[in-house]
């Protein structure tokens, strides 16, 4: 069990491409990851600032409508609203199209996979016309810059993102003896959502060494984390519960709440041995197997502890362990990975993606993703997407994959490759013989290509 170039692209990247050679070795994968982020330059995705700007424009348009008294001013308000809606739709379709184009054309597939993994680990999503499309911007802003940085920095970054603060109600959390609570008794009290998910999902894990008192204390410490549409993140000291708070036996703060005390606590939790173990197992499950080798998990966890959560080193630990290269492809690709790797195998380039045609985008990407079980606006729970293969390969979800495989390649590409050649390109140097036979026997190119994409050999990684 050792490094294999094709496996490197299939299991740890975005799949095989007829245009881009797979990585030569682990060193090259790590070097690319530490090097410039070319994919985000070529296929940009807006950041949180753009979401805030659109939110402000949307609010202004609503105010304009409320204040409008003449037919002319009402007309102007309607135009303003329409313009915001168009921009939101543009943002949504660009984020989706560019996300897939990165996967189709990147030389650094590992980066895309890590961004998806950590974006899922720190799941946040919004609701409503604008905020439901804020997830890609959130990942771009808080996750992507940190995939080779420190875990603690990523934790700090997500804890200061408007989308996360809103998603887990942190902006509503008011310290029971905070300044604002002294003045206004009717304000909602402490909200434990972010504190709980931070310990249970983001860091220590559900079996970690914390109890309800730690959740409560962390919730008190986190009061004050908030945002507004003008500045994005703000520390609202009037909401902050005065310290000290004791979390996992360590005491933070004294008197007036301070952002520095929150950062100090997050740094400690981020480098806790239980966090190392939790994160190591999640990485191994996500990239290798629903039931990973214990030696692999232990190896990654040790590197996390030794480096205080240096993510480049942790990723390298995953790649360098022999168990990561087990021959059997066990994990089923998630819908995003499935479609992404199919686009890559089909050599899709920007002109193939109908990003200016919302209806085609709906037919070819958005609806299929939803039917496959991975709604593009994000998972329905803070736990993120499920890992177990059985969750993804249900009759309905598989039917959606098969339907997409049989119809979307032709709709996107018009000119399809010879199915047998396509099988060799998409599946690597040793494709299963029955897939080759089926590719040869198909009545049309569309069916032949569809059957290759539908085969377990393609759908597993």
């Amino acid at each position, binding site marked *: 069990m050792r490094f294999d170039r094709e496996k490197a692209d299939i299991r740890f990247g975005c799949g095989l491409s007829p245009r881009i050679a797979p990585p030569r070795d682990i060193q090259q994968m790590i070097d690319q990851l530490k090097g410039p982020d070319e994919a985000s330059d070529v296929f940009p995705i807006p950041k949180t600032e753009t979401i805030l700007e659109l939110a402000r424009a949307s609010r202004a348009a609503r105010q304009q409508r409320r204040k409008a008294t003449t037919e002319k001013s009402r007309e102007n308000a309607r135009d303003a609203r329409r313009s915001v809606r168009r921009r939101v739709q543009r943002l949504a379709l660009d984020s989706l199209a560019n996300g897939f184009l990165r996967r189709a054309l990147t030389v650094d597939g590992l980066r895309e996979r890590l961004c998806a993994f950590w974006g899922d680990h720190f799941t946040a999503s919004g609701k409503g016309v604008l905020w439901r499309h804020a997830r890609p911007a959130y990942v771009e802003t808080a996750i992507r810059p940190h995939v080779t940085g420190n875990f603690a920095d990523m934790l700090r970054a997500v804890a200061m993102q408007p989308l996360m603060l809103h998603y887990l109600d942190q902006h509503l959390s008011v310290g029971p003896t905070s300044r604002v609570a002294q003045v206004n008794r009717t304000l909602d009290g402490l909200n434990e959502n972010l504190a709980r998910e931070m310990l249970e999902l983001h860091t220590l894990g559900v079996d970690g060494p914390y109890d309800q008192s730690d959740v409560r204390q962390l919730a008190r410490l986190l009061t004050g984390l908030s945002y507004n549409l003008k500045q994005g993140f703000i520390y609202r000291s009037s909401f902050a519960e005065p310290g000290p708070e004791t979390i996992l036996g360590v005491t933070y703060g004294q008197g007036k709440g301070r952002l520095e005390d929150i950062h100090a606590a997050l740094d400690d939790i981020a480098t806790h041995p239980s966090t190392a173990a939790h994160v190591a197992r999640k990485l191994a499950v996500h990239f290798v197997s629903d039931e990973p080798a214990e030696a692999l998990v232990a190896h990654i966890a040790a590197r996390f502890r030794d480096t205080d959560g240096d993510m480049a080193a942790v990723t390298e630990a995953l790649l360098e362990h022999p168990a990561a290269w087990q021959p059997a492809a066990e994990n089923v690709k998630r819908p995003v990975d499935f479609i992404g790797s199919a686009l890559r195998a089909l050599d899709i380039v920007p002109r193939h993606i109908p990003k200016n045609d919302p209806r085609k985008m709906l037919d070819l990407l958005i609806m299929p993703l939803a039917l496959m079980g991975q709604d593009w606006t994000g998972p329905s729970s803070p736990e993120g997407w499920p890992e177990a293969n*059985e969750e993804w390969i249900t009759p309905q979800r598989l039917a959606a994959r098969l339907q997409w495989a049989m119809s979307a390649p032709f709709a996107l590409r018009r000119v399809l490759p010879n199915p047998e050649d396509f099988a060799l390109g998409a599946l690597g140097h040793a494709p299963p013989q*029955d897939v080759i036979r089926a590719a040869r*026997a198909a009545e049309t190119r*569309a069916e032949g290509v*569809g059957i290759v994409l*539908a085969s*377990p050999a393609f759908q597993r990684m």
Partner: protein
Amino acid sequence: MAGHAPARREFLSNGAALGCCLAASPILTPVTLASAPHDHRLVVIILRGGMDGLDVIRPLGDAAFSTLRPDLRLKETDRGMDLDGFFALHPALAGLMPLWRAGEFAAFHAVSTPYRGKRSHFDGQDVLESGIGLEDRQTRSDGWLNRVLQQLPGAESETAYAIGRSDMLLTRGAAEVADWAPDAALVLSPQAQSLLEMVMHDDPLFRDATIEAIALSGTDLAAQPGRSAPRGGDMMNAMRENMRAARGGARPASIARFAADRLRQDTRIAAFSLNGFDTHSRQDKSLPGSLERLAEAIMTLRNNLGPVWERTTVAAMTEFGRTARLNGSGGTDHGTGGAMLLAGGAVRGGRVLTDWPGLAEADLFQGRDLRPTRDLRAPLGWLLRDLFGFEKRVIETAIFPGADMGPDPGLTR
């Protein structure tokens, strides 16, 4: 996310070698249900957007109503079908009148979930589907229908079906729930089907799901004129047809047909949702279509359930009612109290059940909405007791924690 079916899958992989797959699939094989201790069927329809209970079950007998809804005064002929001398049914639900006359349709009026205040669709639907008030709820709660399954002795993977492409909180949770969207139905040429079977053959997870997907696709295709397995050159047309079908979403009739097909077999509980009830403007134009789709879904269930209809209860509910007054654009805004609709052979219908709060200014909730006089979870709780024999204590703690069921309204026969 609904749970899925390892037990079922093992069963499939034992018997079903591909090739003779469909005959061996238990989906097409009648399964006796001697072990199932309950024989009732429950269909839950979530009406998304906030259905205007006051327009659907119209309190024409309330003197204040015509002031609140002046548009109805103008339309003497269009005031709806009289139900009991006090309430009238929206004309778009005319299709349900035969059920009313047969005593198989009822409404529970002036009910709402425990959700109060902000009138947000998302929070409202979360409360409706989780069955728990916001203040009692954890971030990751499960759906009340899933908790019903957790309490059902002998519940299996096919006992409940979530139908449609949306992932409903209602059915999410620890108990296994099967799911299927009729618009995911596969259209495959015979050749493509046999080649798929060939490449899936050695992978049990993919093989078994493929068998089921093909079988489930057949359920609805057969019933839909114009959608049949294509041959050779028709493939591209079939694909386009597939795309169109997926874009348009499954029609209520095809969802209901699929539900009925399952409910005639192992399935005891089915759930799906219908959209289009958020009628902020020109309600006289926007609401009828949505109501007609609801009536179509209910009547399709009745017509396809055969004798099982006698043991069926359909409960249609929404996240909140709407403002009592018509707004400036002929619509209504997010409100509080509303109506739940019940249909089915098991229902003691022909009645509008309500502790009517009145519509005078002082009677309205916060001066604007129909005042809820009963927690929606109370009649639902009694319904669950009637259908599945749960104890009141179990319902008030495990299924609808925090709900007070109050007196028994006697909803079923």
